[in-house]
């Protein structure tokens, strides 16, 4: 039975915070960590850490072909994790869940299998200017190899997708695939993916959703979206590194050729050839990240006990407060849409100091933010920037931590202005 979310009014956010051991850390003598870099990777609750430890202590064995007790336990737990992921995103069946290493690998899998077979020289892939490199570079690689064309939906000054351009590009270019992020890891923009998918399907395209930033932070249902592919990572959603997910519609998976070749993805091997295994195993070659899959399952249980809608509201409240307080800092500009249109990500530039220097000063006060292009160079170029400083929030952050950020930014101006 899956945990029911507790009503938001009863949620003990401080209690939730206390589940994360690392948040007690002093990063410098007497200076406690204020972790504002969850868009990069999330911290992990004790339950996830302990589940992986327990796996290695009590049920560790290789999966899928073993008659002994440990092999059966490990297999059951791994497949239970698959089932849990399917439930979490509203997939029709667990066979539509492929475990990968991360979002990047998931997208590369689609590129190497579905796209390579179904897109032909002269075909177009439609992306956007706000995509993460992992949802740009694989398509560039394939385009270069197969003579495909890439088109990009522009981003408005307010940090949203230009809807008329999107429609125009769909109609004019008739792309075979539309690949779009559901939440920008720089601007925080939440894109209307359900609507985009509907328009894309009408125009004859399939849709790949980059859910790396959205799945950890809001309720995502692949059937409501009618996404053909959804990619996301465990480590951004309170799970361990080394585990990611590709969701794809069953019919697509049946038709796609295998990704990597080797053990487990076969039904039979002879000297002269092989028969691939059934879906989803066809796409999981070699021993997988078993402990990590189990960690991801426990992370999902943890998140659902809090409730994805509650998490989303919590982050929007913090982001709204952050946007408000950031506007007090002289010479600071935040990029992206207003609070209602974004998740808990805020990227900004300061007149007085370069992002490296901002991040360095903030670090002295225990604040962990990220400085750079955040794997979105085309987006930065669009705004005429090389780099920004990014503060991102998750369920364990508080309004008080935003106050600490503001104090730190005040110090940056004191030092550099």
């Amino acid at each position, binding site marked *: 039975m899956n945990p029911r979310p507790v009503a938001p009014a009863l949620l003990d956010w401080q209690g939730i915070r206390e589940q994360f051991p690392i948040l007690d850390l002093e990063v410098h003598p007497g200076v406690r960590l204020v972790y504002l870099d969850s868009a990069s990777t999330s911290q992990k609750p004790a339950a996830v850490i302990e589940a992986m430890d327990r796996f290695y202590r009590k049920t560790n064995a290789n999966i899928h072909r073993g008659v002994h007790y440990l092999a059966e336990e490990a297999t059951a737990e791994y497949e239970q994790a698959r089932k849990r992921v399917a439930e979490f995103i509203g997939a029709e069946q667990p066979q539509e869940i492929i475990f990968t290493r991360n979002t990047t690998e998931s997208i590369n899998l689609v590129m190497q299998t579905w796209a390579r077979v179904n897109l032909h020289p002269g075909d177009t892939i439609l992306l956007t200017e706000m995509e993460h490199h992992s949802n740009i570079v694989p398509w560039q690689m394939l385009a270069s190899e197969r003579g495909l064309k890439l088109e990009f939906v522009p981003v408005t000054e307010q940090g949203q997708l230009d809807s008329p351009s999107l429609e125009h590009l769909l109609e004019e270019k008739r792309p075979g695939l539309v690949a779009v992020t559901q939440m920008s890891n720089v601007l925080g923009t939440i894109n209307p993916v359900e609507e985009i998918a509907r328009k894309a399907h009408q125009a004859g395209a399939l849709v790949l959703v980059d859910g790396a930033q959205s799945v950890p932070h809001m309720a995502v249902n692949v059937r409501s979206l009618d996404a053909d592919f959804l990619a996301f990572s465990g480590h951004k959603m309170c799970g361990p590194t080394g585990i990611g997910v590709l969701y794809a519609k069953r019919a697509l998976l049946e038709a796609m050729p295998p990704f990597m070749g080797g053990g487990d993805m076969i039904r039979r091997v002879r000297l002269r050839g092989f028969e691939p295994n059934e879906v989803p195993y066809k796409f999981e070659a070699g021993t997988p990240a078993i402990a990590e899959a189990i960690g991801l399952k426990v992370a999902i249980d943890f998140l659902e006990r809090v409730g994805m809608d509650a998490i989303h509201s919590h982050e929007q409240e913090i982001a709204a407060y952050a946007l408000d307080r950031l506007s007090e800092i002289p010479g600071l500009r935040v990029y992206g849409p207003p609070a209602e249109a974004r998740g808990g990500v805020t990227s900004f530039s300061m007149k007085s*100091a*370069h*992002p*490296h*220097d901002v991040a*360095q*000063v903030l670090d*002295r006060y225990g604040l962990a933010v990220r*400085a*750079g*292009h955040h794997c979105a*160079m085309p987006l930065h170029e669009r705004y005429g*920037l*090389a*780099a920004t400083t990014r503060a991102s929030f998750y369920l364990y952050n508080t309004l008080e931590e935003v106050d600490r950020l503001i104090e730190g930014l005040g110090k940056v101006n004191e*030092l*550099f202005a």
Partner: protein
Amino acid sequence: MDDLYRELILDRYKNPRMRGTLDPHDISYEDDNPLCGDHLRIDLRLDAEGRIHQAAFSGEGCAISLASADLLTESIVGKSLEEVRKLGKEDILEMLGIELSPVRLKCALLSLKVLKAGAYGLAEAKDLD
């Protein structure tokens, strides 16, 4: 405040002595670090014996990269190109007087990379890596 932003660095960042461009110049070289947007150009004028008579830097970047550029260009006036070619990472670190993480080290070394590429007359600074 912090070791990293000791007075020397902040002073050179806010009040550079060597900022500008030289026209005419004998050597001019520029390069950038696309990962963070630091961009530097160094111009040199040589005297009759081939020693550096004037030096100037221009560009944008973080405090470490710009302070490093200011200190470096100041230190090479009067040096020969041969001596400049011998400068290394240790010289920059000694000049700045601070410890740097790998990420910030790249910031500090950009000016050296640009200077040496110019001194070697290289087509592209990446030949130095």
